[in-house]
Every structure is written in C-alpha cells, then in structure tokens.
C-alpha cells in the first residue's frame, strides 16, 4: 500500500479489506490462502469475487466474519466495517470468539454457503434454526420470532411456510434448503450478505431462481452483497463490481462492464475466453487455461500466475510481485500494465 487510497467521491464503503493475509499453518508448511487482498464493498451494491477453486475467495469471505477454522489465522491486514451508526471497526483485529464479532455475525453481516445440504443442522427443524438466529440478535418473544421466521420463509418463496417451519432439512429439496438458508441469513436484515457459491450445488433452473431471489432481496432490504463464484455467467447476471482472485490475491478488480469489455489481466482474459458464448464459433476445443493451479505449498516466486501465463516475461514476472494498480477503469496487478520496479 504504497499509495494512499484515492478519496472516494461516492459514500464511504461498507467494508474495506486492505492487505488481508490469512495463512494456514499446517504440519507440512504454511499455506497462504489469502495473501494480501484489497477490496471494498460499497453499500447496496453487489460485488462478485471470481476465481477458480482454491484461489482463496472462500477463505477471504470467511475471514471477514472471522470464521476461519484452525489452523487458519489472519496474519495481517485490516477489515474495516462501517456500522449503521457510522462508526468503523476493524474486524481483523477482533478476537474470533468475542461478543463484538458475534454481534456483527448474522446481524450486520450474514453469510450463506454453497452446500445447502450440509450447511443446515441436520437434526434440528428449519424453523427452530431461524428462530434461534432471530433470538440471538433481536429482542423479541419466541412467538414473535416464529412469526418473523415464517414471514421470512414466505418471503424467500417457500410455499406453505407455516408447514415448512416444522420441517427438517432433509425433508426439503436443495433449492428449498438454499431458500431456507437465505431466509435464515436475512432474518435479521443484515447490511451485507456474503454468499459463498450459493448456487453451485443446484440445478440450472434453481440457480437462476436463487440468484433472482438474492437480487430481489438486495433491492428490497437495500443491503450489499458479496457473491463468491467461479461462474462467469453468474457474474454477468448479478454483479455490479467484480474482483478476480488468483492464488490468494486480487489480480484485477473493477466494475462489471469494464472487466467484461476490457479485461486486462491475462488470467481474467483467459477466464473470459474459456466461456462458451452464444453465436461465437470456436475452431476447435474451447480454449482453456494452461497448466494447473500450483500446489498451495509451492507458491511461484514473483507473479503467482506466471507459471500459466501466456505472456510470461522471464526476469520480470518471476522476480517481482505485481501490485494492484489502477489502470484505466480497473485495478490490475500485472507487469504488462504496471511499471516494473527497478529493484527486486
């Protein structure tokens, strides 16, 4: 962070992540799952975090709520959350078990997960799990909480919500479960919803319904959404802002139009090329990104993407680490665009 962040013209961001590093201290070595991420989430906007599996986007999201399982630990950076009363807190500095962070979880920032099958308590009724959340954060009686929960179930499009209130997770279909999850996440009207690949496990039709639902609710509640996905289609559909992550770093970010129209980072480009498009004929196979994601313990020196980069520049990319810098309409971390530092 050599440069001061430019003073935004828009209202202050809801969440500002700066230099976040979340590392896993395993017996085999340190896995740098998140290694210096800078992001901002604007109020009422949808940010899509895009990246392959294992690029650290889920860990980054969990770091915000401080629910990273051991042996993972935040080792650097800050997560500044601006609360409704205008005060800012650094979530990264909080103890993960403190009452302060627990108040934010579920209430200010809620999260839904990719596996609706396993993300709900298996032997507790759906309704009970929602009511539990409400009672954690809102002062109301159990009966009121129940009504709120049923109302919420209704709102997320679950038919016969009063009946479903008494259902167990395994009695619901995947889509219904994800709706229930969303109901649970939104029951306290959070200001930020983090959705971690919420549609991966669902079939295509349901995926669309869920995405629509999230978009609708976002409008309705005026909340911000951080959507984590590897699916460019999803990004295209719902995103306002996009951040592309690779190996624990944001390699490019910007508004969705800029990224799609003018991707700058070779990785972003490769991602976009690998998506089949209607009306575009490919000569042979769909182009794919060469190579594999490196082993988490063997991070390449210099630019993390250099091992797979078609524009690899020996002597530069394997020596220096590119920083995220504003280039035109997006921020990008690539020496094709950024100046190469004089010394390593």
């Amino acid at each position, binding site marked *: 962070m050599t440069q001061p962040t430019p003073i935004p013209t828009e209202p202050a961001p809801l969440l500002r992540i700066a230099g976040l590093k979340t590392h896993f201290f395993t017996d085999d070595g340190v896995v740098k799952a998140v290694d210096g991420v800078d992001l901002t989430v604007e109020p009422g906007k949808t940010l899509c975090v895009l990246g*392959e599996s294992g690029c650290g986007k889920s860990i980054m999201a969990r770091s915000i709520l401080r629910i990273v399982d051991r042996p993972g630990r935040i080792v650097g950076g800050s997560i500044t959350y601006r609360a409704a009363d205008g005060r800012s807190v650094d979530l990264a500095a909080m103890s993960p078990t403190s009452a302060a962070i627990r108040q934010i979880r579920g209430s200010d920032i809620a999260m839904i997960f990719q596996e609706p099958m396993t993300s709900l308590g298996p032997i507790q009724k759906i309704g009970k799990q929602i009511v539990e959340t409400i009672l954690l954060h809102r002062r109301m009686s159990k009966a009121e909480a129940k009504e709120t929960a049923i109302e919420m179930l209704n709102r997320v499009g679950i038919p016969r919500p009063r009946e479903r209130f008494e259902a167990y997770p395994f009695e619901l279909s995947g889509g219904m479960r994800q709706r229930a999850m969303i109901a649970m996440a939104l029951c306290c009207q959070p200001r930020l919803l983090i959705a971690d690949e919420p549609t991966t496990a669902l079939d295509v039709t349901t995926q669309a319904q869920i995405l629509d639902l999230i978009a609708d609710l976002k409008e309705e509640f005026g909340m911000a959404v951080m959507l984590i996905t590897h699916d460019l289609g999803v990004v295209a559909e719902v995103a306002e802002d996009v951040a592309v992550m690779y190996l624990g770093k944001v390699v490019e970010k910007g508004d969705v139009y800029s990224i799609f129209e003018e991707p700058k980072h070779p990785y972003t480009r490769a991602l976009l090329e690998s998506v089949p498009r209607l009306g575009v004929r490919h000569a042979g196979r769909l182009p794919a990104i060469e190579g*594999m994601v490196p082993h988490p313990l063997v991070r390449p020196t210099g630019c993390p993407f250099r091992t797979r980069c078609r524009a690899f520049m020996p002597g530069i990319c394997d020596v220096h680490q590119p920083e995220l810098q504003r280039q035109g309409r997006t921020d990008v971390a690539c020496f094709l665009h950024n100046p190469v530092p004089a010394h390593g």
Partner: protein
Amino acid sequence: MTMTQTELANAAESNIDPTPIVLGPWALVWRKFRRHRLAMVSAVVVIFIYLVAIFAEFLAPFPTDQTSVRHTFAPPQPLALFVTDADGTRFRPHVKGLKMEIDREAMRRSFAVDAERIIPVGFFVKGYEYKLLGLIPANRHFFGPLDPRDPMYLWGADRLGRDMFSRIVMGTRVSMSIGLVGVAVSLVIGVAMGGLSGYYGGWVDTLIQRFIEFIRSVPTIPLWMGLAAAIPLDWPPLRTYFVVTVIVSMIGWTSLAREVRGKFLSLRGEDFITAARLDGLTDREVILKHMVPSFSSHIIASLTLAVPLMILAETSLSFLGIGLQPPLVSWGTLLKEAQNIRSIIEAPWLLIAPGSVIVVAVLALNFLGDGLRDAADPYSN
C-alpha cells in the same frame, strides 16, 4: 473446476515448478500416522512385545516350571552393574544373594539381602535347553546368572519359587497370540458376515443382523463358561488353548461385522462402485478389488483395537478359572494366581508385574489402534 482437470495431461510440458510427489493412500496413512507420536512409540512397544513373544525362551533365563524350595515368594532382586571391592570398581552385572528365614509360627519366609554373596550375571549364558522358534535346538539365553543353578529373581518369585520374569516373558507368547489368533478368527467371520450383510442388503442383511443381535444378546460369561466346560478333559492343553481363543473371539466378530456392514452400506452408493459394477465386474471382484481396499485401513485400526480386548477377555476367563490351565502360562493366569489379599500384602510383585505388563501392552495396542484409526482416513481434515 473442469478447465484445470482437462489440462492435467498437458501440464508436464508447460513451465511448471516441481509439484510435490503425489502420494498413494498407504503412504498418506503412514505419513499421518507418523505424526501421531504416541502411536509411534506404541508401535515400537508393540513390536518389542511381539519380539519378546517370538523369542521368549531365549529371553527367559529359567524354565517356567522350575521351582525352588528356598525361594518361595522371594522379592525382586535389583540388578546391579558395578562391583566395588578391594580392587576398585569394575563393570560386572550381578544380583545380590538372598538369605531366607522361616517363621514357622506365621508360616512365612522372610528374605534379607546377602550383600556378601554376589551372583554374577552375564549375556548369552548357557541355560536350559529349548528350541528356538520351535525348530533350532539351543541352550543359550540372552542373559542370566553365569551358573544356571544360581537364583536370580529380577521380578521376584511366586509361591513355588518360580521366576516371575521368566513366567511373564513366556506368558507374553500365549497372551499376545490369543489376541492375534482371536482377531484373525473375528476378522474372517466379521468381514464375511458384515460384507454379505452390507453388500446384498435386503433379507440377507435382516437375517444376519438378527443373528448378530442374537449372538450379542447371549451374555458373554455364561456363554464362555458353558463352552469352556464342554471342552473334553482329555484334550491336550494346546488344543484347549485354541478353543479358548475361539471362545474369546466370540466377543469380537459381531462388532467388526457391524462396522464392515456400515462401510459396505455407505460404499454401495458411491459412484466408483456403481462404475465398477457397470463395467461388468462380478460381485466378488467388486468386493475384493474395490470395496475391501477402500476400508482396509479402518479394518486394520479396529483390529488393533480388538487385540487388547481379547487379551483382557482372556484375563477375565482365567479369573473365572475357565481359561487356560497350567502348565500353560499367560498373563491372565499369572494375574489370577496373584488375585488375593495375601499377594497384595505379602508379595505385591506377583500382582504388579503381570498387572503392569498387561496395562502396558493394552495401552500400547490401544494407542496404536487409535493412531491407526486417526490415520486410517488419509483424506479427512
């Protein structure tokens, strides 16, 4: 993500850093196991115990049935390494002699250390004859008094003046093999029954589950007593030993079968099993080539945990007087002989020595099994 997977084949040619070697499942198990330090230590202990069992005669300085009138209830003699006399201090392993006095009124012998009398102890000394591994005639023993007629009771002597150390060493063979043989019997029955039950399901499963429930509903001790009492008396001790082992293994196979069944049930729905079936493999092949390997590490772990149960079961049998009979020596029979107030008060070593050996062996086996179980699923966590 599909794109990385499709590119696997091309990966080698591109500018790739050396990726860590991809380990096979067994290597992964071993790697995880190695990290479990307690289990590693236990593994060493268990191997040591089995070595003792194999080379028992070589390690035991005296025959198990060698009695000594002058040394009934002789206390343990500490092994000293150095001798200090007029010529200075020299390395000379020895034990001190014992002076015995008889208190006729209280009917007891009391022993005092005879500091004057030094019984030199050496390695690879000559002693009683035996067959190493049951084949090679030998008379050398790992250590013992230089003169085999001299007394040396490192762990004390029992009521007939027999050397407890030798008896425990020899008992290791019976006790530890009862565990192994018993487990082997349990394994065969358990995997067969559990496998059938879990693989076929339906009425086979119902039948076998009812059968297991039935076996388990018969209380163990009466079952043991009934079976043990039905052994004809004119059977030689070794055959009786084998039957006792089979009896002991009755407790093991049902739980193993349940475990195997559970694994089968969960595997049955897995894609790779379905794929194997669609490939036209016979049931036998599917079971042996695909299912058994995928849970064999679990089975090994449960087996390791079953061995100590068998060892303890044998001690219970011995306690009831329906287990092994003299002249066979096992830890259980040794413990039974010491199971009385008199031993606790007058000769605690009779209880402590076999008791601690059992505890150590069972502990080690349990830790080992625990470590194996933790390591058994290399993909967990």
